[in-house]
C-alpha cells in the first residue's frame, strides 16, 4: 500500500516537474524566416460586411501574408452567409460560387487554407490558420501556372489563358478555377462599436470565369514536359473598377479538393 502511494507520489512529482514550460516573456515572437519552396497558398476568407469580427480577422490574415510573402500567400475575401446579405447601405458582394463554397456554414469569419477539409464541411477560425499555412507552404509544388490576360477596354471583355506546367510525372484528375478579384473597394462595414462607412475591402471575390468547380486541366497520367492550357472569358461589370481587378487562378485535386498552386495577375 505504501509502495503504491510512493509510486503515485513519484509519478505526480514527475508530472509536476515536466508538465510546465515557461516561455521567456522577452522572447515570445518567433523570427520570420523565408519559407523554402515555391508553392503559393490560397486563404479563402469567408466574410461579411455586417460581421463585426471580420475586419480584425482579415487584418490577422493580411499580417500573415505580409510576413510570409505576398507572392506566396493569396487571400480571397468571399462574402457569404447571413452577415454578407446586403441590407440598407451595406455593399452587395454576394456571389453564387461563394455561396456554394461557403457550404451552409453558420458564422463569419471563417477560413479555408488551400481548401483543406473545406469539402468535408470544416473551416478554420483565423487563429487556426497559421499552422496549416506553414504546412502548405512547405509542400512540394506539383504544378506551375502562368496566366495571360487580354482586356478590351471598350467592350470590357476579359480573355484569360492559363498554362499549367507539371513539375514532375504524376497521375490524377485536376481542375482549375479562375476567379475575378476586385481590390480596395470602399463601403460600409460593421466594426466593434458601430459602422465604418469608408472601410476598404481588400481582395473581394467577384465571381469565377469558369464556375465554382472550375474546368478540367488533366485527367490521368501526366509528364513533366506536358503543358495544359485552359481559356476562359468574362465581361467585367460596368460598376467594377477594372484598374483594381485581378485574375486569381488555382489548380486543385478534384478527388479531395486540395489546392496545389495559386497565381494572381492584374487584368490590365
Amino acid at each position, binding site marked *: 500500500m505504501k509502495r*503504491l502511494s510512493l509510486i503515485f507520489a513519484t509519478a505526480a512529482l514527475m508530472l509536476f516537474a515536466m508538465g510546465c514550460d515557461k516561455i521567456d516573456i522577452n*522572447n515570445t*515572437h518567433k523570427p520570420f524566416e523565408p519559407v523554402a519552396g515555391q508553392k503559393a497558398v490560397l486563404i479563402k476568407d469567408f466574410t461579411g460586411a455586417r460581421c463585426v469580427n471580420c475586419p480584425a480577422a482579415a487584418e490577422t490574415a493580411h499580417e500573415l501574408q505580409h510576413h510570409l510573402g505576398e507572392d506566396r500567400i493569396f487571400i480571397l475575401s468571399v462574402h457569404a452567409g447571413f452577415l454578407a446579405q446586403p*441590407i*440598407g447601405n451595406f455593399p452587395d458582394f454576394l456571389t453564387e460560387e461563394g455561396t456554394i463554397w461557403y457550404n451552409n456554414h453558420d458564422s463569419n469569419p471563417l477560413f479555408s487554407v488551400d481548401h483543406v477539409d473545406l469539402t468535408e464541411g470544416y473551416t478554420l477560425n483565423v487563429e487556426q490558420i497559421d*499552422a496549416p499555412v506553414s504546412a502548405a507552404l512547405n509542400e512540394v509544388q506539383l504544378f506551375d501556372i502562368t496566366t495571360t490576360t487580354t482586356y478590351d477596354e471598350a467592350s470590357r471583355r476579359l480573355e484569360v489563358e492559363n498554362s499549367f506546367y507539371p513539375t514532375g510525372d504524376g497521375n490524377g484528375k485536376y481542375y482549375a478555377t479562375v476567379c475575378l478579384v476586385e481590390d480596395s473597394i470602399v463601403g460600409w462595414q460593421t466594426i466593434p462599436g458601430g459602422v465604418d462607412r469608408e472601410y476598404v475591402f481588400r481582395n473581394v471575390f467577384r465571381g469565377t470565369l469558369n464556375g465554382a468547380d472550375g474546368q478540367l486541366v488533366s485527367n490521368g497520367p501526366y509528364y513533366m514536359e506536358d503543358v495544359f492550357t485552359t481559356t476562359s472569358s468574362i465581361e467585367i461589370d460596368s460598376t467594377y473598377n477594372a484598374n483594381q481587378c485581378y485574375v486569381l487562378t488555382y489548380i486543385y485535386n478534384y478527388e479531395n479538393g486540395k489546392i496545389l498552386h495559386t497565381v494572381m495577375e492584374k487584368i490590365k
Partner: protein
Amino acid sequence: MRKYILITVALVLFSFRASAQSFLENSQVNGSFQTDAQYYVLDKGIGIDDLLGKKMGINGFGKVNYTNGNFSAGVRFEAFLPEMNGFRSELKGVGLANFFATYDNGFIGMTVGDIYDQFGCGFVFRTYEEWSLGMDNALRGARVVIRPAKGVTLKGLYGRQRYYWAPYLERDFNDDDTRGIVRGVDAEWDLNQSIPALNDSKFRMSLGGSFVSKKQYDMSIFYYIPENVGAAAGRLNLGYGNWSFSTEYAYKINDPSAINNFIYKEGQALMASLSYSQKGFGAVLQVKRVDNMSFKSMYTGKQNDLDINFIPPINYTHTHSLPSMYTYSTQPNGEMAAQLQVNYTIPKGTALGGKYGTKLAFNMSQVNDIVRDSVMDNGRMVISRPGSLGYTSRFFAVSNHRFFRDINFEIDKRISKDWHITAQYINLYYDIETIEGHAGAPVVKANIGFMDVTYKINKKQSLRLELQGLWENEVHAGYEYEESEKKDYQKRGDWAFALLEYTITPHWSFSIADKWNYGNPVEEYRDHYFTGTVSYIHEATRIMLSAGRQSEGVVCVGGVCRTVPASSGVTLTVSTSF
C-alpha cells in the same frame, strides 16, 4: 486416452458454462436512447426566407452500460444527420462516439476508453457530456484510482479529448493537429473517514489537490507556444454543525491561446462558499474570482472546444421561458462574481404559512470584470497585446464594468389541496455585448415577472397556467437605433408569454403557448412565437411533438452556452431508458 480427453473437455465446458451462467446472473444492463428531430419550414414572418438547404435536423444517441460486480463497461452511439440548427456543423456524422471499461474493487479502480471525471470544482479538470449543448469533451485514455487508506483517494489519468468526429490518432494539418494530450493527478483526504475520533464528529474536514498538464504541439508561425502547460489547484472543505465552508484556488502557468489573444500571463481562479442550513432556513454566500483561466487542450480552440477545465457559474438558474432568455455565460478571461441565496419556509399553521407552509427565496448575484493594468512591451504600454504578458491585475480589485446582475425574489405557495402558485420577480442587468458578442448593443436592463398556477381538476387531471412578462427599461418600442444595427435588436424590448397546459396523468400532456415580442424597437421584429405541444409518457418512455416557432436565444447549462437561431417547424423528441 480419448475417454480422459472427453471427460476433461466436459469438465471445462461445464465449469465455463457454470461461471458464464453466474456471470450473466450477476449482470445488470441499463441504457437510454433519445432522438430529437426538427423539420424546418420557411417563415418570412420571423425572417426565415431561406432554409439554406436544410429542411430537417436530427440528433440522436443511444447508450448501453453493462455492470457485473466490480466490472462495468459501456458504449454510446451518436448520429447527427444532419445536426439540428444551433448545433456546431462539425457534429454532422454518425458513429460510436464513446466507449469505456472499468474494473474497481474498492482499493484500485482502472478505466480505459472515454473518461468523464472532475477534480474538485473543475477549475483544472472536468470532462463531461451535455446533450442539450452538443458538448462532449471526454478524455480518451486511461485512469487509475487508488484508495490506499480509508478516506484517501488518489487519481491519475491521461488521454486526448474528443473533438467532434476528429480521429484520435491521425495527425495532419487540419484544425485537429494542435489537440494535445492531457495528464492529471488528484489527491483527496477526508479526515472524518480517516481519523476514528472524527468519524461521528460535528466537525468535518477534507482536503484535496490536483495537478493537470497538457502536452500540445507548437504549430505557430508567430509565437513560441509552451508545449507543456500545467495547472494546479488546492481545495479545502470544512463543516461544523449547520455551517459549512469550502474553497478552492487554482493557478495556471503561461498559456497563450486564441481565447486570451495569445498573452503569456499566468491564470488564477478562486472560489469560496459559506453556507448555513437548518429546518426551514438555508443561506449560501459565494464569491469567485477568475483571471485568464481558459484551459484547452488545443491552443487554437474557440468557443467550448476542448475545454480541459470548467469554471462553475454562481448564478441563479432560471427555468421559465422569459427569465432564461438572458442567461449568464461564464467569462474565462476574467470575472469577479458574488452570489447570496436565502431560502425560508414560513411554517405551517401560522398566519402567513397557512395550512401547507409558504416557501420564500431571495437570490442576488453580480458579476463584474477584473481590473487590468497595462504592461510594458517593446517600450510601449499595452493591454492584452498578443505576444506580451497581457496585463497585470490586482487580486481583489473589482472593475466598474458590470457584466451581469440578477436580483430575484420567489414565493412558492400551496393554497389548497387543488391550487398551487409560484411567482417570481427578477431585476436583471445583462451586458449583451460582452456575454453574447453583440458589439455596440445597449445593455439589457429589465424587470421580469412570472406567475405559474396549477389547478388540480381531479386526481388525474390538472391545468397549469404560466403568465410571464419582460419589460426593458431603455430598449423598447420607440427606441432609436441605427439601421445598420437592426439585427442586434432581434430579441430586444418587451415580451409577454402565456402558456396553458392540460395534463392527464400518467400519460398525456397538451400545451399551447405564445411568446410575443410586442415591445421590440424594430417594428418588423414584433413577432408572435406560437407553439403547441403534445407529449405522451409511458413508464420510462417519452414522446413529445411540438409545432410552431422558436425565437432566437441562447441555451446555457452550467454557464456554458450555445446560440439557438430562430426557427419554425415541427419538433419530435422520443426518449426512453431501461
